[in-house]
């Protein structure tokens, strides 16, 4: 753990608690009404995520991966099936499972520090000094200490997502749910954030479920990559990515994994075409 000047002992205590969750998704189905009829977003999907595991969900748009993420977050309810975090059913949103959205969703009426502090203020059993120390720690972790008093609109897209990451990490959730958080960023910034996220994951040991439609991104970040197929949303195939960290998105080994996944994705859509679906 990094050193920070003058941190109270209870704040250090708070930062030492590292307790990633185990997730169990069992036979989950969810459908939506749309203009063209009922869409089966998730069709009996089952999935286990280990404590501290980094899992990526990839697939074309509309394959239900975001729906699954929202269900784990407690923002949506499944039509059937069970979702358990550490054996307990998930019924509502809670700070043990924090979400990072595609948009930063930062609060413009607060400055950077206020945004990171928001979730911490809702956490009981901490003094205000602890909260400030913890917020400072995470701002340092994402490299934005100099910007703690900046207004949100003054930040670049990449910096905003960094603040959003610090805000999501600050209440020390057991699970971090990420919904295409880097999709709207330029390639250079994104590559920096891949490095940051891997470093932070190793340092803070979270269970991470990461949704993306970028296969390379998934292979770069995930220990396991789950390929989703749409209409109805199902897990089509599973890949274990066995590469040392930190991984470089441009490395040849990684390209090998990405190619394998893309091939499987293509094969599936071709089979579909032949079936006339």
């Amino acid at each position: 753990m990094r050193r920070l000047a003058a941190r109270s002992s209870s704040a250090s205590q708070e930062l030492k608690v590292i307790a990633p969750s185990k997730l169990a998704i069992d036979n989950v189905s969810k459908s939506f009404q749309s203009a063209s009829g009922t869409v089966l977003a998730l069709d009996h999907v089952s999935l286990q995520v280990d404590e501290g595991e980094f899992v990526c969900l990839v697939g074309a748009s509309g394959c239900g991966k975001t729906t699954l993420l929202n269900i784990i977050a407690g923002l949506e309810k499944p039509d059937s099936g069970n979702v358990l975090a550490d054996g307990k059913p998930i019924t509502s949103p809670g700070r043990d499972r924090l979400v990072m959205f595609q948009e930063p969703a930062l609060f413009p009426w607060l400055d950077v520090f206020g945004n990171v502090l928001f979730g911490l203020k809702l956490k009981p059993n901490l003094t205000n000094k602890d909260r400030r120390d913890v917020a400072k720690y995470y701002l340092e972790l994402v490299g934005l200490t100099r910007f703690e008093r900046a207004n949100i609109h003054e930040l670049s897209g990449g910096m905003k997502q960094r603040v959003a990451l610090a805000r999501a990490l600050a209440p020390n959730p057991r699970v971090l749910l990420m919904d295409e958080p880097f999709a709207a960023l330029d390639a250079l910034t994104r590559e920096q954030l891949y490095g940051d996220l891997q470093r932070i994951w190793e340092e803070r040991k979270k269970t991470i479920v990461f949704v993306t439609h970028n296969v390379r991104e998934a292979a770069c970040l995930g220990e396991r990559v789950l390929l989703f197929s749409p209409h109805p949303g199902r897990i089509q195939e599973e890949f274990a990515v066995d590469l040392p960290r930190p991984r470089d998105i441009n490395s040849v080994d990684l390209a090998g994994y990405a190619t394998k996944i893309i091939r499987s994705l293509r094969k599936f859509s071709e089979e579909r075409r032949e079936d006339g679906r």
Partner: protein
Amino acid sequence: MKRFLSAVLFFVVLLFLWQAFFRAKIWSSVLLPSPLQVANYLKGAIEDGTLGHATVITMRRLLIGYFIGIVVGLPLGLLIARWNLLRDTLGTTALGLQTLPSVCWVPLALLWFGQTEAAMLFVVVMGTLWSVIIATETGVRNVPPIYRRAALTMGSKRLHIWLKVILPASLPFIVSGMKQGWAFAWRSLMAAEIFVTILTGFGLGQLLHYGRELSAMDQVIAIMLVIVVIGLLADKIFFSPIEKFLHRRWGTSQA
């Protein structure tokens, strides 16, 4: 500094023009007094306390009524945004009454409350209330849903979300509604004071009215100036800093 100097220069030129028109004697001096006459009236009115007294009475009516309007309007706006039933009923009522020029409340207020302070307050409240309600409701409806979702996952719930997320997120709308409410309240109070003599207090509007009765044009112009200055001060002292803060935080303006 340069901006300040050019502003000062502008008003000096304006004064000179006024003086020039007065000197040219195009209109009788009963209709157009000189700047000096107006200044003399102001000096006298300040010295004998007439002006200070009238200003205090008017501002007290305005501030109390405005305060009531906001304290009642803000929660009502939130409630209306929260429940569709209230929106269809009270919300529609508010929308309708907001289009009513608030000076139209004066006859009703006089019949209900007589020539009393309550009538004045009532007019000011009616000027403020509907604007604040409508602006609050619009503000809440314009809060991006993602803020709510983000707050929910961080463990924020019902009342906390309303106070710490939805209310601050709608601030830009609420402040512009408060500003509009202020403008409506100020105008309707002046109209009411000019129309009606209230025995419990002699406000700026009444001074203006008696200036006309006495054909004292210096008094009429002086009081009009005072009313303009109060309006400007309210903007510069109260609303401007809030708006500047909002613009800086939200990044909505270069200034």
